[in-house]
């Protein structure tokens, strides 16, 4: 399987650096963006499988970014990683961002954190396998229909 890529979005450079350091040995590509705009540019040019984004960022909020990702790249698994924790923030992240997980800050790059990203990647893989199987089934069905017609 091709190597998976995770995109981290946070306007706080210290957070990104700490992630970079903490996840150095994890078996996936890591890409980092300082804003939603940067992140969208990266998505255009790269195959990304999981996004992990802060909610509270200047210009484009995490929620806005998530909505665009959901719309334009629906297969990418969406995770929020945020300290700005209020009931309404969480509700909108779930209901409008349709997120897979929410990691509250403050956090540590520990085994739990790594496990969440690992699970997100597995979730991506499962979905991809399912879509491939459905495509195969549809092809089989088309072939079968073709044979039935020729009989």
């Amino acid at each position, binding site marked *: 399987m091709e190597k998976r890529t995770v995109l981290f979005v946070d306007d706080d450079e210290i957070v990104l650096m700490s992630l970079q350091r903490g996840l150095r040995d994890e078996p996936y590509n890591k890409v980092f963006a300082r804003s939603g705009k940067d992140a969208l540019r990266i998505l255009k040019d790269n195959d990304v499988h999981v996004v992990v984004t802060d909610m509270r960022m200047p210009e484009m909020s995490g929620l806005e970014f998530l909505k665009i990702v959901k719309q334009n790249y629906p297969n990418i698994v969406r995770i929020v990683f945020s300290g700005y924790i209020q009931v309404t923030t969480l*509700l909108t992240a779930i209901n409008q961002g349709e997120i897979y997980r929410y990691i509250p800050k403050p956090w540590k790059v520990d085994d739990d954190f790594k496990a969440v990203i690992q699970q997100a990647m597995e979730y991506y893989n499962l979905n991809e*396998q399912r879509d491939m199987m459905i495509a195969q*089934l549809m092809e089989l069905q088309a072939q079968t229909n073709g044979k039935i017609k020729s009989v």
Partner: protein
Amino acid sequence: METRTVLFVDDESKVLASLKRGLLDEPYNKLFATSGKEALELLKQNEVHVIVTDMRMPEMSGLELLKIVRREYPHIVRVVLSGYTQITTLLTAINQGEIFKFITKPWKLEEDFKGVVRESIERYNLQNKQTASEAQLTAAQPSDTSEKMQEEGGTQT
């Protein structure tokens, strides 16, 4: 496409009665359970596509129910309908229950609720893009592919 089925779980029969009345004309089958245990019984006997559950219930909590559903019926789309809205409840619902939507009580039937249930059914359909004939095809060809599909809950035969 076959009619989809939505299971509603709440320990308050008043809530269920109100949903039953309010959703009368919605184009899907509705099932109702007043406990997690009853819900699991219904899941055994019926093909369910979306589950909408309260969080705070005696005996089995909504979270426990969601976790079981996630494990045993992973293809079912999970939604919470709950008035007990605290950060921790929300966090466990998303992180452990892997829910698709969270509706807060009191809910607005027309503006919110009906739309969310429909979106959940669409989500189910998107994830399970098969038509009945494909399901038949899977059943008729017990290949590796179909077995894997079954495991993932992608196939409804």
